[in-house]
């Protein structure tokens, strides 16, 4: 029993330490990427403190952290003190807690220590059957953090940010769920290890066979992480700072770090659900029996994939303009939800009839399913193009009788 607790504590320390470091360095990477894309150089000065060694600006996160900690932590007089404090705590805790069931590798072989028999699973809580459900449950708590903070701030910009984030995050929960349902159907489990294992065993990543589900999940994940094409809750150009307008010092840092953690969670989920997790053909093997090189390689492959997805998040930030709010909602309800439903339907039909049909005809299941998946993606995309549900003109209509009825001046008393 004691060994289990020690192992769990070690893993928790690893995950939290790793996540904090990763978040800090992803902030630096984000700033450097932003600078490069804008033809600048970005922060490249700060190196080892008290020396002149620069190290490409790798000391910048330390300086940023010190700055945040030593800044004045100003609490405006008009806020609700308890909720104002609770907001960043809730969002931060929720963002960290989601990592309890997210694997950061496969397994380590037997360490050979007495009392520690059997392989060690590289995730904090191995064998949780509701894994994916837990991630979504905890992640959807983030919206409480945003709304608590924005409401407690008692400020109009924060309030608008909170309203927007409430509507956006809750709307995109549905496509997010629909996007993964196909994957869960195929794997037959909500456990993230099992989902990776299924992709590794067949060697067919879900992105090849369910591209439609991937598109839905990717867009919804961007929206859930409030990253740039969907960053309406904190749009600087519109809302000053959005829900964290009134925050400063370490509370602001908690909000910002939690935001990066959401992005990292989303990247992990994208990699695990659609890009085969730690699996890479011909390199990592597929079985449960691992040797040390294979175990290390699997961790490296998984983290490399996650880094690539994070880089894509950062590239996307500077590529596409922000959606208008009604376009955002149209996107969720009129584009992503139908797409997710179509994907769900196709996958269900495939599992019920397709597999047997393919076996009867003697074809390769993976190739046929990939062909079906891509055909469905193209067909759905074209159908949505034709219907154009997101091209909406919401301005007041011209001409009678609408104009007269709606906008007739009130008789003056």
């Amino acid at each position, binding site marked *: 029993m004691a060994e289990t607790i020690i192992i769990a504590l070690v893993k928790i320390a690893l995950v939290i330490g790793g996540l904090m470091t990763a978040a800090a360095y992803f902030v630096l990477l984000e700033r450097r990427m932003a600078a490069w894309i804008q033809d600048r150089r970005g922060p490249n000065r700060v190196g080892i403190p008290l020396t002149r060694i620069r190290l490409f600006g790798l000391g910048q996160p330390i300086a940023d952290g010190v700055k945040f900690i030593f800044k004045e932590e100003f609490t405006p007089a008009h806020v609700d003190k308890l909720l104002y404090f609770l907001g960043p705590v809730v969002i931060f805790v929720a963002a960290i807690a989601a990592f309890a069931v997210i694997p950061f590798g496969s397994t380590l072989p037997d360490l050979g220590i007495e009392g520690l028999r059997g392989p060690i699973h590289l995730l904090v809580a191995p064998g949780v059957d509701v894994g994916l459900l837990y991630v979504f449950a905890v992640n959807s708590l983030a919206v409480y953090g945003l709304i608590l903070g924005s409401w407690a701030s008692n400020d109009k910009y924060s309030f608008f940010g909170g309203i927007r984030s409430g509507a956006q995050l809750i709307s995109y929960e549905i496509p997010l769920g629909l996007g993964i349902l196909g994957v869960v159907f195929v794997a037959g489990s909500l456990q993230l290890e099992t989902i990776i294992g299924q992709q590794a065993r067949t060697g067919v990543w879900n992105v090849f066979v369910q591209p439609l589900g991937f598109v839905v999940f990717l867009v919804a994940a961007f929206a859930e992480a409030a990253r740039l094409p969907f960053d309406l809750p904190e749009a600087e150009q519109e809302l000053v700072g959005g829900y964290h307008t009134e925050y400063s010092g370490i509370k602001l840092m908690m909000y910002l770090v939690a935001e990066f953690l959401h992005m990292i969670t989303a990247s992990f989920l994208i990699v695990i659900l659609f890009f085969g997790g730690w699996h890479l053909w011909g390199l990592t093997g597929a079985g449960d029996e691992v040797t040390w090189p294979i175990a290390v390689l699997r961790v490296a492959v998984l983290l490399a994939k996650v880094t690539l997805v994070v880089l894509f998040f950062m590239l996307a930030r500077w590529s596409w303009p922000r959606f208008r709010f009604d376009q955002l909602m149209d996107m969720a309800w009129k584009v992503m939800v139908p797409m997710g439903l179509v994907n769900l339907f196709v996958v269900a039909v495939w599992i019920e009839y397709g597999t047997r049909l393919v076996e009867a005809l003697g074809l390769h299941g993976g190739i046929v399913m990939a062909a079906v998946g891509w055909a469905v993606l193209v067909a759905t995309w074209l159908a949505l193009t034709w219907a154009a549900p997101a091209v909406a003109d919401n301005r007041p209509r011209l001409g009678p009788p609408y104009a007269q009825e709606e*906008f007739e001046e009130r008789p003056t008393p």
Partner: protein
Amino acid sequence: MKPDDKDIQWVEEPDLGASGKTYLPLFVEGMTTTIKHLLSPKMTVEFPEERHQIPDPILYRGVHRLNRDEQGRVKCVACFLCATACPAHCIDIVAAESPWPDREKYPASFTIDELRCIFCGMCEEACPVDAIELTSLFDLSGKSREEMVFDKEKLLSIYDRTKDSEPMRSVRMAAEGKPVGGERPAILPETEGPPEIAEKDNLAEPGATP
């Protein structure tokens, strides 16, 4: 707002077209632009190690200098034209009897408050003897306000520092074969008698009758 108000001009949204409604061309376009800029050379220079290359140091308006003549004396004749032209009133000259036979006055003290200066270059334009010029030095800094008031010695030392990289205008023009100093530019025709402009000035004078 009344939608049928005559003052409202309704602008129709452009039609996206079939390819625009798929969103794909715009997505590709955005990503292409981003990646192109990500890989393109950077515009900024790393300042203390690497200095900004000024395209034309002669045209650049940086820190002032006071030029010296061939004998190493200050060229200024303390005519106050620069101080008069200066819109920021940052030039302070104390004139004195010249110890040299070729001019009447010379500046006993010549100070420029670099913190007040707006680097407009009017002093350089006004100077009749090419004594004050703006150099291409741009990184001017100091630890106190007093330090930023440059006196004659300091301004002359800036000339000593920059005379080789940026020769005086008179030296430059001589090298290019153009007339220098007090010579009249050749484009004005040599005319006998009072010039026309003088007559017009007389006419404009109040009370003067032709």
